[in-house]
């Protein structure tokens, strides 16, 4: 089944909405609580990343009884050096964003830690695509 949620860059008051919706879906499917927790943490981090760094984005969710695939596609500055971004503690978030408690550079590594599979690709000046896969069984 397919779901889509749009994300507005810079609007932190709505950050987390899509993650909450996805959480609801997984609860309705009676997915194991541990998997739900990891999914939501990864998804929430990713969602906040888009809000913090991009102009806009969309979350595409595909799920069946075997897996859930969450693809976050944004239009934004992109990530010049993905390897560097994957290191814990690295952050390009502005100080304003950091003050709000976001963008402490925990994002990508934390997503990777929680996701069963994570793929990321980015084009500078265009945007970033992040795909999180969780195996439900």
């Amino acid at each position, binding site marked *: *089944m397919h779901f889509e949620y749009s994300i507005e860059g810079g609007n932190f008051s709505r950050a*987390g909405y899509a*993650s*909450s919706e996805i*959480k*609801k*879906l997984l*609860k*309705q*499917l*009676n*997915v194991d*609580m541990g998997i*739900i*927790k990891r999914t*939501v*943490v990864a998804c*929430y*981090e990713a969602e906040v990343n888009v809000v913090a760094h991009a102009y806009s984005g969309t979350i595409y969710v595909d*799920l*069946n*009884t075997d897996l859930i695939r969450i693809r976050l596609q944004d239009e934004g500055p992109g990530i010049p050096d993905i390897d560097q971004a994957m290191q814990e503690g690295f952050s390009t978030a502005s100080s304003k964003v950091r003050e709000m*408690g976001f963008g402490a550079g925990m994002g990508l590594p934390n997503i990777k830690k929680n996701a069963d599979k994570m793929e990321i690709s980015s084009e500078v000046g265009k945007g970033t695509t992040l795909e999180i896969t969780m195996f*439900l069984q």
Partner: protein
Amino acid sequence: MMAVKYFHHALKFRKEVCIGCSHCMNVCPTQAIRIHGGKAELTDNRCVDCGKCYRACPVGAIIVEQDDFSRIFEFEHRVALIPNVLMGQFPEQVSINQIRSVLHELGFTHIFEVEHGTRVLEGAMKQYMEQHGRKKPLISTFCPAVVRLIQVRFPGLTDNLILLKPPLDIAATYFRKKLIDEGAKSKEIGMFYITPCAAKIAAVKSPVGDDTSDIDGVINMDFIFNKVYTSMKQGHKGKNFCQVPSLYTLQPEEMLWSLTEGESSRMPGRSLAIDEINNVIEFLEKIENGENADIDFLELRACDQSCAGGILTSGNRFFTVERLRNQAREVEMENLPHYHQEVDESMESYRGFLMENIGVKKVLPRSMEKLDEDMKQALLKMQMVRDIMALLPSVDCGLCGSPTCNALAQDIAQGRAEITHCIFIQKKYEQKDWLNSKDSMEILKEIWGEEKFGSQKN
């Protein structure tokens, strides 16, 4: 279908009184209510006993069951376990001593404030937090409505619950043991809790994470309030009253334990207090997403102003809070009274015994969110809900007898309702000649009852 009944409910819907106005359905935070045949119907396992519906009902069709008061006389030693909010119910000119006297006159042989249990509990909680500190945030189990809410709506957070008995149970365990040690037989002791809410009744009747309770019965606080207040209005000023110590018996922080921040202000680290069930739900959503996970302790209460806002209280909750705060301040300014020290020392000598008995079993998730136990079926139903949602108008008018369009869609997917229950669909179908107006009227009658449509023939 849910065959197992997980919870005991203290709230009862009286069909004969219900006018099917749907107020209760619209305020229920867990969507546990539907209207059928012009009457409110409860889905037992979804209800968390928060009492929102009780407050919303305009005709008193929802009642809170209680034990027959005369049951106390089945026991030789009749203990009234009173929460401090009882003291906050009365206007200033009524003294605590008077209240206690009337309770004695009503037949109780002993009176014991449940907040005495907090002195052992506070230490135990701090210890628990040290041992389980990595599971942030740890959540208090004080409010049984919140514990159930977590079980049914936030099952992933059941692991965060602090698995310790609430002050009430500790106080009951202590006092029973003390009476036994003084020579009473256990079966001659009757412990009755004067409850401010339905959730506590449910918790006594089917304790969360525990099999039995030391409490023999519950008496609703409004019942006691009326008794005491009537007696005072009739001019009882003490001449018939038995001797009770005329002193405060609680420490200031104990007096405030059941109010908002009563616990959080006592806990180390970063702690937060949130009251009112919708606020609690909003906050738990965030916590579940992993937002602000570095909070150490959460005090969550289902009622606005915590227990001062319990549904069985009679006093205005803001006055109650003010009164209890004043009381606490008074005690703080005076030297601690002598009677208090007695309780203090006695409880201290039982600390070891109480600590042995303070734990409760793991609280199990009772998720009511799932569309089906089987994921494949659940997925099919989810698709169905989506398809139905595409047809429904998303106005959440409730005329279908379900609280929202989405709730109706889920009800349909689970075989508990029909799409024609939606008034918009009815109109659409009528226009397409798929449904005649007579049938559509029948559907409405089925949901809202015959009476709502008067005697006009159509």
